[in-house]
């Protein structure tokens, strides 16, 4: 298992969130949606211009810009 930044995850790759370094409004929004350490996520796809990224979190799909994904580190399998 290794830890990488969410931005560099590949299509369909799954993993478990390790840390969320964002604070302020972005941090709140991210955590409000359940992106906290321990949450399992999977990269569902990317928009045509490669940004934002769509994630499967639990039973729903969430989108996030790449520069926001930079704050999240993931343990990938």
């Amino acid at each position, binding site marked *: 298992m290794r830890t990488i930044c969410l931005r560099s995850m590949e299509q369909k790759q799954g993993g478990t969130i390790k840390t969320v370094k964002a604070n302020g409004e972005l941090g*709140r929004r991210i955590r*409000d*949606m*359940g992106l906290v350490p321990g949450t399992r996520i999977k990269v569902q*796809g990317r928009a045509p211009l490669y*940004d*934002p990224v769509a994630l499967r979190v*639990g039973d*729903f799909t*969430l989108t996030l810009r790449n520069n926001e994904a930079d704050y999240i580190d993931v343990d990938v399998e």
Partner: protein
Amino acid sequence: MQATIALAGNPNSGKTTLFNALTGARQHVGNYPGVTVERKEGLCSVGAHTAHIVDLPGTYSLTAYSEEEKVAREYLAQERPDVVIDTLDASNLERHLYLVVQLLEMGLPLVLALNMVDVAKSRGMEVDAEKLSELLRTPVVPTIARTGKGKQDLIQRAADLAQQPVNQTPLVISYGADIDKALLEMQSLISEGAFLKNYYNPRWVAIKYLEMDEDIIAKGRAVNPDLSDRLTAISARVAAHLEATLNMDPESMIADHRWGFIRSIIQQGVITRSNDSDRLYLSDKIDMVLTNRFAGPIIMLAILYGLYQVVFAYSAAPVEWVEGMFGWLSDTAAALLPPGMLQSLVVSGVIDGVGGVMGFVPLIMFMFLGIAIMEDTGYLARVAYMLDRVFKAFGLHGSSVMAYVVSGGIAGGCAVPGVMAARTLRSPKERLATLLTAPFMNCGAKLPVFALLIAAFFPANEALMMFGITLLAWMGALVAAKILRMTIIRGESTPFVMELPPYRVPTFRGLATHTWERTWQYIKKAGTVILGISILLWVIMTFPGLPENKTAEFEVMRQHVAASYPEAAAQELANADEGAELSDQAQALRGALAAVDSQEAQAALRNSAAGRIGGALESVTQWAGFDWRTNIALVGGFAAKEVVVSALSTAYSLGETDPEEYQTLSQTLAKDSSWSPAVALALIVFTMFYAPCFVTVVCIAKEAGSWKWAAFSVIFNTAAAFILAVGVYQMATLLGY
């Protein structure tokens, strides 16, 4: 006693559907004071009683970042509903429990509506409502809001709770040793000082201080600055400690523990899955095509283009009916009223003015229906997702696309609901930039102006010109947004943390409501503002009339003309019925007399207040090639863009022409020596970008929260439009057009 029940829930949990199922037609839509968040209220019978139901804005949390969250929290804390119903999506339970936990921490009397159990079932999930109820110590009622299943039970449980309030102790979650200790300390200070007592329970206030919630801290400081400062000091101490030991802030710590609590509940067997949770749902499969990197954009363009085609194809007939109706009304009024000022006011001022706007209602309605379909199926969220990268480059947000599209991004919308659609944007800066630039889109009222000018000067390239005009509007809006975001509304972009809701088949009621609400805003505009403006325009184009000696001059001219023809022709014309066959001579005489009438009408218009204004502006507007008549039309167009064509046609004394009957006017313009393709291009550009119509300006003031921005949009847009128009005119003239 009438119980008040508030409906809370995440966006897309089915809250509005549930609200409609409970209240039926007995509802009322208003606004929360001072903000643009909608407040829906309604009544619902429970046995012999009636309950008062309030639909709160959909929120994921109560952290109070967005206006919606603030409104919801403020309502819950201050107006103290007897019961709160929180709507949960059973197919996505975990995320929805985050709001539940926060409501329980506030200590509110709560009933949970476990909604969408049908969707959960189809996804192979079963939620154990009893177990959930037991673990949360809160009633849980399974519902299907779409069919109304479970709503009786739900409302009964809520009413019972309202009648016999159980002593609800707020939920207490452990946030780890450091925070728990600080919370206890703060809690006792808060209880002793009866601090913010009317609002919240002490532990909750303490949590908000630890989360450094600006809203609550400001409230606290206002009532008891000393105590507030002591609490802030404790909070700062904990923050420093956590930072040093765990490299974390209290806020994330609290959120992590809340999620931990939720997981511990879920893990106690609340959800039974008969499927692998990694399985792709139907919605995901659709997304693999619709948001595919290559196919996605092509399909998106095809859908938008198809929408455009369908709307124009299907609205053509109803538009004709409405126009026919106003034509009939106008004829009837002309027949009933004696010729003179009153007839002119009613026919030219009121009926034609309002009719010109009403004629577009069917088109606008189809447009909004199309947009509602995109919205209610969930496709619009995908459009925002696919386009976000582009919008971000211009300082906007993927969700800005909605405001642009409604405003006329696919030609033929209306900026009034478009500006309102900017509400979905959460960041004030991006919202402001969006609502200030959305009026650049080609709304349904600008189309006749373009159609007129294209028909007159570029008849060979109609489709190409329309396409170019649409493209230009987008470019203009995006560039203007970028400029605004780099200068007066600078600031960080909002996070794009957004849910992609699952695709759903829209309901008839949902579509009807969405379509009608927006269409109604447009109709209201025609009924009120346009009516007033039409009358005003009629007045300034009619008064002051020509002086006596001038009128006499034209009378003499008429007599001269009549004298130059044989007596018999004049006799024949005077005695002929309407539509009767005339001899060549009599026809020629009639034409000559009409020419004099037209000259007189022109002279009268030039002499009227409007003519003088237009003339005075000519010294400036000549740089863009606009003469006084065009100026009148453009000044009128500030009231409503629909007026541009009808005012032009009056100015060219063709009598009041309906905005759609531009054929004759376009021929006149094509032949007129003061017009050229260069003028037409300049006018197209100016019409596209200059001041939004009056109603939109009022709307901007309301949505932006200040008249300053409304005034700004008038001045900035007009100045920019003028500079562009001058540039276009001068360039085109140089190139010999």
